């Protein structure tokens, strides 16, 4: 195995483009190193991106949004009070990952590019409308988070491409987001279902919404019908019912040791309701 420690994204991309066998980028390593030890994936080339300048920064964008570096650990996001105030749902998705030790290493982009359908930070990013900057041999492009995963363990990144930053849009007025996951225990578990809701209000009425589901299909989903079910409503019972039904209808899960199809489909609706209520309360400025 070859270990590389490039000092720029261009160099990282060039190494990846030339590498022959299995290549992995090393961010926090909480997936890569675990898979290595467990004999699941033994990379031929391991490209450590933590030494590239700027990767540990959390910065405001010109438009009032956020740029999160690709080596920013979960714990650093949780400690950023302004980010938490703007996007509690995005931060709580990341914060749910692993233990205190894992939080000191794990990153948003690692969670996204590991390609798990159950990745906890992904639905929150999708609901928030996050994009990622992708750099590769063909240049640089901006891609919506929902377009990155293409299947379990698979991403839309071409050979030699890597992500250089995550952009979270400006929060704006009267917005709120939330992420909930279902696990049998209280922590150290994989989401059986995950759901993020992001919405904006005009008075009591929802004017914009994005709903994303995790662990119920080969990739995290952006569920347009679920958003439509609550836009224009005050999140009354009928709207919540319609939301739950749309969320359940969007599910295409597998039956496995972590949950049955029936259970996942039902719980997706339950979590959508609950997450929407929290996002709504947050949009109203309530502590939820």
């Amino acid at each position, binding site marked *: 195995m070859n270990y590389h420690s490039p000092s720029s994204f261009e160099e990282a991309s060039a190494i990846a483009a030339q590498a022959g066998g299995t290549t992995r980028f090393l961010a926090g390593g909480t997936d890569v190193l675990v898979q290595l030890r*467990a004999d699941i994936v033994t990379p031929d080339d391991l490209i450590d991106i933590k030494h590239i300048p700027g990767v540990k920064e959390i910065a405001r964008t010109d438009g009032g949004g956020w740029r999160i570096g690709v080596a920013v650990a979960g714990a650093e996001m949780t400690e950023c009070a302004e980010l938490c105030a703007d996007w509690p749902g995005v931060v709580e998705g990341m914060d749910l990952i692993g233990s205190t030790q894992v939080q000191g290493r794990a990153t948003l982009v690692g969670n996204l590019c590991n390609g798990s359908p159950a990745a906890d930070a992904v639905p929150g990013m999708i609901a928030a409308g996050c994009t990622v900057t992708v750099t590769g041999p063909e240049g640089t492009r901006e891609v919506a988070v929902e377009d990155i995963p293409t299947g379990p363990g698979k991403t839309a990144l071409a050979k030699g491409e890597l992500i250089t930053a995550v952009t979270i849009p400006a929060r704006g007025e009267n917005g709120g987001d939330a992420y909930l996951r*279902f696990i*049998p*225990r*209280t*922590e*150290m*578990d*994989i989401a*059986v279902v995950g759901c993020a809701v992001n919405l904006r209000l005009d008075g009591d009425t929802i004017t914009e919404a994005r709903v994303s589901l995790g662990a119920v299909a080969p990739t995290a989903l952006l569920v347009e019908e679920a958003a439509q079910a609550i836009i224009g409503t005050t999140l009354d019972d009928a709207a919540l019912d319609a939301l739950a039904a749309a969320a359940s209808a969007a599910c295409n899960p597998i039956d*496995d*040791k*972590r*949950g*049955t199809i*029936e*259970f996942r489909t*039902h*719980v997706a609706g*339950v979590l959508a309701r609950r997450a929407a209520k929290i996002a709504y309360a947050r949009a109203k400025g309530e502590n939820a």
Partner: protein
Amino acid sequence: MALDGQKTAYKYIGTTPNRPDGLDKVTGRARYGADISVPGMLHGAVVRSPHAHAKIVKIDATKALAMEGVKAVITRADFPEGLEGEDWDIQENCMAGEKALYDGHAVAAVAATSPLVARDAAKAIEVTYEILPHVTDVDEAMKEGAPVIREGAADFSVPEGLHPNVVRYFDSGRGDLDKGFAEADLIIERSFTTEAAHQGYIEPHACLGQMGADNRGELWVCTQGHWFMRRMSTAVLGIETTNIRVTPSEIGGGFGGKTTVFIEPLSLALSRKAGGKPVKMVMSRNEVLRATGPTASASMDVKMGMTKDGRITAAHGTFRMQGGAFAGAPVDVTTMLAFANYDIEHVHHIGYDVITNRPRQAAYRAPGAPMAAFATESVIDELCRELGLDPIDTRLKNAAKEGTRATFGPKYGPIGFMETLEAAKAHPNYSEPLGPNQGRGVASGYWMNWGGETSASVAISEDGSVTVSVGTPDIGGSRASMALMAAEAFGIPYENVRVNISDTGALGVNEPTHGSRATYASGLATIRAAEECIGKMCKRAADKWGIDPEAVVWEDGCAKPSGPNAGEFPPMTIAEIAGEMGGTGGPISGHYEDSPAGFSGSFGTHVVDVEVDPETGRTTILRYLVVQDAGKAIHPAYVEGQFQGGAAQGIGWALNEEYIYGEDGRLQNPVFLDYRVPVASDLPMIDTVIVEVPNPGHPYGVRGVGETGITPPLPAVANAVRDATGKRICKLPLRPSRVLAAIQGKEV
């Protein structure tokens, strides 16, 4: 309760000093199994079957042996033939012979100069399998046409006409069932299943073995019992027991799972084949879950009758258990203890021990008892509900007490079951108001405890401090308890006693720390050995004073003349006697050995409050109370620790822990991510009440407390979920999907 000849006032017993091993453990100085390293050491790795059931056609190690750093490869051909009975089972389990019998079964092992080389070499060993049909479920394995794991495995107890996978059969009872059921106003019969649960100890199995061509050697190992380890390892290798000296390491949990052997004989065989170089072996968690012993899974039918006023009139239970590919599922204990809490005239138990393509079960905390309790205590709960009776009052009405003839035969001596029920009823948790979707469950349990072969020594040091040597590894704070008992016996401070766990070369045979016996049996031996020392010290003082030894008494760490008639001499402290012992007759030590039979069982009653999310079926434990009889709590904090640990493990078994097998017979969840033991945040602080009804068979009244605590949680939690949801679920675990399906009115 005062008992003849039993102390009731104590100076040290009942206090809670720091454990002597605590500092070592929190500073990393304690040496566990994997911490032992010696120069020139090799590392072992095991090749394991990926199939549930397969004929081993060929093992080709050519490529592995050609790798740089590879020193030895062993297969079953490196072990002697002709073993019988349990010895053969152990050998076959440590290293497969003609067939791989379960996913994870060892088929070859390799020793190399580094762990990585060993791992790569293990991958390079080519095994050709012929896959056979498999069965992993106990009920399926008994059915006509089920794959036969091994012809001729059944013993004499099995009636004709049963499937060859049924290897032992138990049938016991008394009274007249028909008569008993006829007296009942209500009869309830239900079928139950529980899944296999792993002990889940944090420290994986680890050892370092060294053996020469002369078949002599040493084993450093993490184990609950090093004499067992020695006997089993040498049996597997076909050599004499005393050829191997076994030294136990600190132990990071065992719960019964470390009372047998897995990799240890392999390390010795690899060492011999590698020219006597020591071989270290450390299991991964995957290996622990796939190839060491979880407990058995069970399928059970229980029928009980009750009168309107709550008297149990008759009980019948059929228990089918699989414990992997070998005889040994603890169904004998299950049948013994199923109804043992109660005074029942008409009772009958039937047990089937069934073999399947799963790893060989190992003991797990009260082996066999929790499953039975799940079935019987659930049925009692149903009876109470339907008859409108209070679950604690009903248990009180039927509770076994001193003089009751146990459902398994003998008469109980002084026991504390009623006391646990009364304390549970009086505890504030039992009257705490419940909110919506919340429910309360009550259940009781029992473990009979054990004495076992025991040998211990106590030696007086030159400065008057004391060394206690016992042969029972300290798995739950027993060194602190031994030190307290020695301090009490000598009348010297706790800090002046040091307790060692001796190797197999230093004491007579000791059974492992199992059966909740260490504090009882090694404690008893410690006290008796201390008394022998005291006798000798009194004699030294008597000689010095020129009086009769009988005229000397021992009090508060000193020899004293027994009264004015004995003469006027100032007391001699233990330090004074010890300081001159070289000139007064030589070293002073005491020794005691026995298979003490005065052990006595411990009853417990648990009360749990849960909240069930009606939309997801997820259960949260709100409150949990353990009330249990300790006889006498030597170190109350460690007694509470045992209560809480048993409850935590039982809650895990009840809610989320299970062995999940795929269609292919492979274990689907050999990792802690998916084998879901409770994490700290899943549990509330577990409340405890220690009941003390002294055991007359121990000088200070000790009963074992280690195992009873895992027995009530399975039914207690299920009863609470019933209370919260209105649904009786007869299958464990109560995972959210199952509870939700029940709430939705589906068949579960």
